[in-house]
């Protein structure tokens, strides 16, 4: 179980991780068409964008300059016509660029979203099949983050990260080459100065990330303290410590402010530094350019083109730092996602296990043979448990909290595997029976009866195949949950609010029993709820429980006297061992632990 020991969430902060990238590519491959489209769109857009400066150059060097040189007296007709031609071309270019800009945003976005949808679904499916030990170690919230925030970060990676960054690199190279064609000396000076900009961009982002992290940490402390004071406001007020906590708050606030000053400073510095860097390049370009124009080595139009291409070159470099950060956080998310995907369930199917050779409706014979169990790193919670559940009989488990009752039912369901000993069904080790075949034979009723968002019907059927309408109706009648539905607007089709809040505890228990009855399982595993309900519901639950256990092999963590009394055998557990066993009458006669527990139970019943 060592793989569960460390539950790390803080992972690599590399901006580029080739191994992870290779793995991500596997998910991108089926959608290669979208990636090709994205590149096509970006290429076309780039071509259109390049056309702009070129048209300016041709228009200036063409009609404008020649008209200027021809003098005031010349006929302006040909120049105007030539000018209008370039304007027309410019318009066409803009139409093309505008269309491509639309596709640039929408196709890139579509690509990212399509890929992450696949990954998200696969991740969810994988998590669903992991064993309970995995869930024990992780707060639900952190797992939810995997399929939400982390996955969304990856969309950024595919869209703005890989595609755009890759293309930006291409743009820079092409632009530099073009500049060389226009004016080699000028281009060379630009190329020499370019690293200055790149340096500023990356250095700033690095600093900003640190500073931001610092601000977030201080803000977390500040808000944490605020939360704390709000939840303890009663203590603060009775102790008259309002001004003292205000002082502490002021201290945290000041630290937060100081951290903020650092980021403000960085940002205040970055923008001017960047524009000075740009000026360095543009000023040099102007200096060299003007010299070239004067010496007729370069036309004014060519200088225009050069200048506008320079603007195009600077933009991706300015955004470089930003993209770098996107990549970094996306790779961190990818790492966390693959960590989960690489986790294998500890409860595994034996390959080629044959289903049990017993009709799905026949109650089987269950047997625990010297079962021992410990949770990861924990002490032994079951110390050699042996008992049998003959077909159609009920075994009740009784004992204090922590005596191992819940563990026994968790093992029977194979939520965990035994540490030693074995559990058999019809003489076969549970681990050699296919999980689906095993669990299909069992009906589970839990203490906390979990309802999913959806209709009541969906909650009763729970997507299990083979439940007919007649089964459902019969289950409702048997559990007397049908009367409950009568008063619901919409009946079976009524929507269950989040976590089933519209039902009382007792009603939820009835629904859970109906849910189990509907599948007509030959084995029932029941963890009786301890919460008290009104006496009318109580008697309904008693009745429904009785019908549920009838004729089935059943293992019950019992709290109700009526359930215990009817059990064919009662096991009294203490600290992971069976200390007494027998029927209700036999155990009472022993005047041992069960007798005392029974007395206590009675007293509790009177109090309730």
């Amino acid at each position: 179980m060592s793989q569960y020991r460390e539950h790390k969430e803080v992972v690599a902060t590399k901006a580029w991780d080739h191994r992870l990238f290779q793995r991500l590519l596997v998910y991108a491959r089926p959608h290669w068409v979208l990636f090709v489209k994205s590149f096509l769109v970006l290429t076309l857009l780039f071509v259109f964008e390049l056309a702009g400066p070129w048209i300016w150059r041709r228009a200036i060097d063409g009609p404008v300059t020649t008209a200027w040189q021809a003098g005031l007296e010349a006929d302006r007709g040909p120049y105007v016509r030539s000018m209008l031609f370039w304007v027309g071309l410019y318009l066409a270019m803009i139409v093309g660029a505008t269309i491509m800009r639309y596709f640039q945003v929408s196709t890139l976005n579509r690509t990212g979203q399509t890929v992450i949808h696949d990954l998200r679904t696969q991740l969810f499916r994988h998590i669903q099949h992991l064993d309970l030990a995995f869930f024990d170690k992780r707060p639900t919230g952190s797992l939810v983050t995997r399929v939400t925030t982390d996955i969304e970060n990856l969309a950024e990676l595919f869209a703005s990260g890989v595609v755009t960054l890759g293309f930006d690199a291409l743009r820079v190279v092409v632009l530099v080459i073009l500049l060389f064609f226009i004016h080699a000396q000028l281009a060379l000076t630009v190329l020499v100065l370019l690293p200055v900009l790149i340096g500023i961009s990356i250095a700033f982002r690095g600093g900003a990330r640190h500073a931001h992290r610092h601000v977030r940490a201080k803000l977390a402390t500040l808000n944490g303290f605020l939360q704390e004071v709000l939840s303890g406001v009663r203590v603060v007020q009775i102790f008259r410590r309002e001004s003292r906590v205000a002082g502490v708050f002021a201290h945290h606030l000041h630290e937060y402010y100081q951290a903020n000053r650092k980021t403000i400073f960085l940002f205040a510095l970055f923008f001017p530094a960047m524009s000075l860097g740009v000026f360095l390049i543009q000023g040099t370009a102007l200096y060299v350019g003007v010299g070239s124009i004067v010496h007729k080595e370069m036309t004014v139009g060519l200088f225009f083109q050069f200048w506008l291409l320079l603007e195009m070159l600077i933009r991706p470099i300015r955004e470089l730092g930003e993209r770098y950060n996107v990549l970094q956080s996306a790779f961190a998310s990818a790492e966390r996602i693959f960590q989960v995907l690489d986790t294998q369930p500890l409860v595994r199917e034996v390959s080629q296990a044959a289903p049990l050779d017993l009709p799905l409706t026949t109650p089987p014979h269950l047997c625990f043979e010297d079962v021992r169990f410990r949770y990861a790193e924990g002490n032994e919670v079951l110390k050699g448990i042996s008992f049998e559940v003959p077909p159609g009989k009920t075994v009740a488990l009784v004992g204090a909290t922590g005596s191992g009752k819940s563990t026994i039912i968790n093992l029977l369901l194979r939520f965990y595997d035994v540490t030693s000993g074995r559990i058999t069904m019809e003489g076969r080790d549970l681990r050699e029976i296919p999980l689906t075949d095993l669990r299909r034979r069992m009906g589970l009723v839990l203490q906390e009866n979990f309802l999913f968002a959806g209709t009541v019907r969906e909650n009763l059927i729970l997507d299990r195949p083979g439940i007919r309408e007649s089964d459902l109706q019969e289950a409702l009648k048997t559990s007397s949950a049908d009367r409950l539905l009568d008063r619901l607007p919409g009946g079976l089709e009524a929507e269950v609010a989040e976590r089933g809040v519209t039902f009382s505890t007792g009603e939820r228990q009835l629904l859970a029993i109906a849910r189990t009855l509907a599948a007509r399982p030959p084995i029932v595993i029941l963890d009786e709820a301890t919460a008290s309900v009104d006496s009318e519901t109580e008697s309904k639950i008693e009745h429904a429980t009785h019908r549920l256990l009838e004729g089935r092999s059943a293992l019950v963590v019992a709290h109700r006297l009526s359930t215990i009394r009817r059990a064919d055998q009662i096991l009294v557990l203490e600290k992971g061992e069976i200390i007494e066993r027998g029927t209700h009458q036999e155990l009472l006669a022993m005047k041992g632990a069960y007798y005392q527990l029974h007395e206590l139970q009675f007293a509790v019943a009177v109090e309730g």
Partner: protein
Amino acid sequence: MKALWPFAYRFWRYRTRLLAGLLCIPLGQAADVAMTVTIGNAIKRAAESDNADWIGRVIWLLTGYAVAQAVFRYFQRWWIVVVSREVEVDLKQDTFEKLTGLSFEFHNRSRSGDVVSRLTSDVENVRMFLGPGLMYTVGAMVVVPISLGVLFSLNVWVTLAMIVPMTAMGWIMKALTPRIHRYSMEVQESLADISHRAQENFGGIRVVQAAGIEDAQAARFARSSERNRDNQIAMGEARGLTHASVNGAFDLTFVVILVVGGLAAIDRTLPIGDLFKFIDLTIKVFWPLIALGWIAGMYARALASAERITELMAEVPSIVDAPDAVQPRTMRGEIDFRDVSFRYHPDSPDVLQHVSVHVPAGTTLGVVGPTGSGKTTLLSLVGRLFDCEGSLSVDGVPIRDWSLASLRGHLGYVPQDSFLFSAPYEDNIRFGADEELSDEAIHEYVRRAAMEGEVRSFPHQYKQRVGERGVTLSGGQRQRTCIARALAKKPQVLILDDCLSAVDTETEKHLLESLREAGKSCTVLVAAHRLSSVAMADQILVLTADGHMEALGTHEELLAQPGWYHDTWERQQRRAQLLGEGV
């Protein structure tokens, strides 16, 4: 807009730096525009002259402009944004002090998440709008007219013509923003759905796996994810449309410059160098214009947030000192409840009904009863966390006539939820004391709370940091720490609200003796579930489930008569025997 004025006033307090920062904006913009004009003139001159000797001087001039622009930009951002952060500090501090000053009745009815969001995201919204938002607005307000002014002076017609597509850009943004907003709402909803599904499946994994419906649930999840994907794609398309139209309108400006400016150049009414100025200044006004659209979106949020903060600041504490409140220096600790009733809301049921009990100074009153019988509420009334009906007096003075400072100044309180701060252990004890505590004094209080040995076993002993809400301490350790903290107050009245439930019986016995020792001169009110905690009290008040008095007497008297106390005592004793210890 009115809602924002009080906040604008807070900015005004820092007017020196704020105004200096605001002044930097036009100066920086002017330097920026000057650069464009200078470069344009250089190009113009280059096309006409046959030597380039002058270019060195131009570059020096440009460098001057560039440096000036950088310096102004730096100070503009530095001064304005720092002031906005200082206003944030003031605002948060004031709101915090307001919050801790509000009566418990307020905290009871408001959700803490809502209150926290006013102090965090609402303050941030207001700050963003009045700080950086203002900066960008002023920036746009300055650069657009300056640029247009320069362009007008060059050529009126070109300038007039290019205003058309620029205005169109504004309209397009305004028209398309609601669409994006709508799609983004849908995306948010489908994201919430995904996270909800994940939450319930991972939380209810037992049910899912036992029913063998992992794959069916995964298919449902896939549908949610699909819906989100489709919404995201639809939003991407809407964003693409906006992006394309805004940029298209912007590009059209260049067409206008090319056609009108180009024709003017052919006509020799516009030199080529001036064409450059048109192009470069258009690029320079593009971003400020986009920023204006962004700020318009911020305004609505800032306004709503300002109202929410103002609403909070307008809350009046419901419990305040009476105008002629007495402030005695000492308290004897005689407490008298006479026919006290209480309900949390006018239309909710009574929690306490006609409770009368007299507690002489220096005696102990135990309060017991089933869950929900109002034990905690009864104890809260003594600290005047709430005002009640009937008469409640301390030392014969009605509680409303006490000043809160002197009333609460004499109380020691141990809350039911054992609230501790996530701070070093000793600081939690110091919290209780009015004066600075010596280390010896802290050790003494901890010893009296039967915690000394355990504190010494902590890796950092008294400096050990108590985890968030004290999670690194066990329940019993937290309870005893709260007791030590209350003792540090040297209270005249000690209120113990079911604070021994997680302490084992052995320690409880020790603690009760120690408390009695300490509390010889002090009145003690103790609520408990475990009756052994109150058995030694001078009187015990038994409350019923609906807040009535069932009985009042000593342990022996109550045990001698049938009723809740008798039954519960019997049961607890038996359970204690059975499990070998106290529950």
